[in-house]
């Protein structure tokens, strides 16, 4: 079955939901890829998303893995374009109009008003992911330890995530 049109629809829609960061789109990403289209399981989605946090560059590159999963190389390429083109065009257009928008009084209101909403969306995405990733006291401890380390030191997050992998291998083998 040809999944390419569905991939384009899903990821261009998700593109426009990434207000404040990629995590804002996570709840919809879960619903569409796991519950609606059954492209992968929730566990697999969480695995890809977490590993994606270690990759360099924009932190939503895990979508490429979903595309590859569903439709091989064409799927990966289609997803990449579908996910980044809509917001890129928007940024391009608004960037050129920004000089004129600077005088528009509502611009400031939109910026100010969207700030708490985008934080809320990131938090909601984080909670959705936590439901699947924090499954017992060991994973809860790993998440909490990672949070504390990252808030209190300037350590590179890659090392924290790698430490999580080590703890997992040592303590979470079934």
């Amino acid at each position, binding site marked *: 079955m040809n999944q390419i049109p569905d991939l384009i629809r899903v990821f261009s829609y998700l593109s426009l939901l990434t207000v404040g960061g990629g995590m804002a789109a996570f709840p919809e990403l879960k619903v569409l890829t796991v519950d609606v289209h059954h492209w992968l399981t929730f566990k697999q989605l969480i695995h890809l*998303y977490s590993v994606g946090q270690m990759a*360099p560059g924009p932190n939503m590159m895990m979508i490429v893995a979903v595309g590859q999963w569903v439709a091989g190389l064409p799927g990966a390429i289609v997803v990449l374009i579908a996910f*980044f083109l809509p917001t890129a065009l928007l940024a391009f257009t608004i960037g050129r109009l920004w000089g004129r928008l600077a005088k528009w009084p509502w611009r400031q209101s939109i910026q100010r008003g969207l700030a708490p909403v985008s934080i809320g969306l990131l938090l909601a995405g984080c909670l959705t992911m936590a439901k*699947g990733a924090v499954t017992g006291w060991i*994973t809860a401890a790993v998440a909490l330890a990672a949070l504390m380390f990252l808030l209190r030191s300037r350590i590179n997050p890659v*090392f924290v995530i790698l430490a999580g992998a080590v703890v997992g291998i040592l303590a979470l083998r079934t």
Partner: protein
Amino acid sequence: MQRRATNKVSAIPPPGPELVQPPARSGEISVLKIFTTFLVIGATSFGGGVVAYLRNSLVTKYQWLDDKTFVELLSISQTLPGLNATNMAVLVGDRLRGTAGALAAICGICLPGAVIMYGVALAYHVRGDRPLSVAGLKGVAAAAVGLILATTIQLGRKSLSGLPDLVFVALTVVGVNRLHQSVPRVLIVVGALAILWYRPRRQEKDKDKEDKKEEKEGPSP
């Protein structure tokens, strides 16, 4: 209740109209140079925080932008949907070399991560369900939750102030996680509420009124 901090936008000063002028040196920068610069950023910015890498390269190393412009472009990136990294690439690329520059920048910054995640997808197919991989991935996922929460908290500290903001955050979270509303619905409803709450104060009109009042009353004798 008093509405506070109407003019505070993510601790970033509002961009001025001079934004539209291209930087003086833009003519010297080739599209290829833009591509390779963003490619290097895309390949080396491990551990998130691409913005810091962008600033290092664009402002400090190459001086293609000054700090003020960088912050202005960043504030556009943060308001619009899309990842900061790719929005910044488009905005900076466009300012340096127009459409071709924007295209080169976004392709450059995305390519390394995309290739890596393509490889991850292949590897996950082969080894993803082995016990050792599953155990490691469980730990990775838990740590990633901590990382995302930390990033959100750090962002929140910078951009939130006052009780209304906390109420909007809570409404958004409850809408998505408790009431299971779709993200766009919550975005539109709570977003509209928040924007109305911080609607433009009618300072100029008030001023006009005061002026008129003064005129009516006339200079006191």
